[in-house]
């Protein structure tokens, strides 16, 4: 069933339809939140809060809008708020959690190492650059969608992506070409 059909049913009060949307978009929201907050537990909280806020507001969803973009707009705002209020705690625990997550992973070491190294490189970006890079290259969004989600202009977003890429290039080359 399409997003549009599920949203239409959710607006009418069909909880199962909304739950289906939540299952469909949980992983992409969680990816975004993890990169923005650099802390799995905080990201999980923020994603849950995002879906609950969207659930409460689904009656106001404007027909013709793209559900994913609308959801990500709420998510980005939630991440920004959480990043501000939880800054100290996230800095203290993020490295430990990343290490534990890697230790429990059953995939081949090379795959785990690649993802961890790339994540560490992206995490080292300034928040606004990181946000723009993840929306473009991880979530594959268009600049017009990114502008709606972030509230920034398209030219500003292109500049952020360029700066993010400039900062990442030497680190990614070291990861992939060593």
């Amino acid at each position, binding site marked *: 069933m399409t997003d549009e059909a599920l949203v239409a049913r959710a607006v009418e009060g069909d909880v199962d339809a909304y739950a289906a949307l939540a299952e469909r978009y949980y992983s992409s929201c969680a990816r975004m939140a993890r990169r923005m907050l650099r802390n799995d537990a905080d990201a999980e909280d923020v994603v849950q809060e995002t879906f609950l806020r969207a659930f409460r507001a689904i009656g106001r969803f404007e027909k013709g809008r793209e559900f994913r973009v609308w959801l990500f707009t709420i998510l980005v705002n939630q991440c920004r708020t959480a990043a501000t209020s939880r800054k100290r705690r996230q800095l203290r625990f993020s490295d430990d959690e990343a290490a534990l997550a890697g230790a429990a992973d059953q995939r081949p070491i090379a795959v785990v190492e690649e*993802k961890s190294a790339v994540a560490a490189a992206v995490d080292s970006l300034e928040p606004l650059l990181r946000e723009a890079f993840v929306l473009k290259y991880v979530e594959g969004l268009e600049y017009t969608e990114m502008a709606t989600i972030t509230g920034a202009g398209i030219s500003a977003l292109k500049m952020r992506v360029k700066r993010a890429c400039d900062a990442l290039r030497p680190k990614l080359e070291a990861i992939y070409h060593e």
Partner: protein
Amino acid sequence: MSDVDNEELFERAGAALRESSASDERAREALVRAIRAEARRRRTPPRGAMSPWWMALAAAAVAFAAGLGIGRATGRQFVAATSLASDSAQRHVEFVFVAPAARNVSLVGDFNGWDATATPMRRTDGRATWSVSIPLAAGRHVYSFVVDGNDWVTDPQAPLSPEQWFGQRNSVVVVPVGDRRS
């Protein structure tokens, strides 16, 4: 390195980060449970069957602060005003709810994303009455009160919306255009 190589580099990094996490499945299930719990919370029992302690005492009024003074209007006046068109002008609207035993009360509506933490109400009038004044655009708005963070309660003094969201109706307030009541 060429632009094409660069693009491949960043696409490859993005793909590495798109891999789902091992904890996603558990968290996804927890989220669906939370959504269903939220839906159950939002289904307010029929008005006659609601917790009686504050329903018996509840009375709400809405006042429009227009220009020089604040006046009070009854629910009937809002019904009469429902045909007014919206515009961008904002008016201050005071929401009042009587619930002496409540620990906290907040206002939720289409104007604050139905967020129970966005618009807390303050105790006034000898601690029995809760109120909050917020700017609202002219036009029709739907709202409810949230008592003690859990119970969604409609305003007994205001008309109910005909539409149901997740099985619940809400109260309606219409902010008139260009009204200068006092």
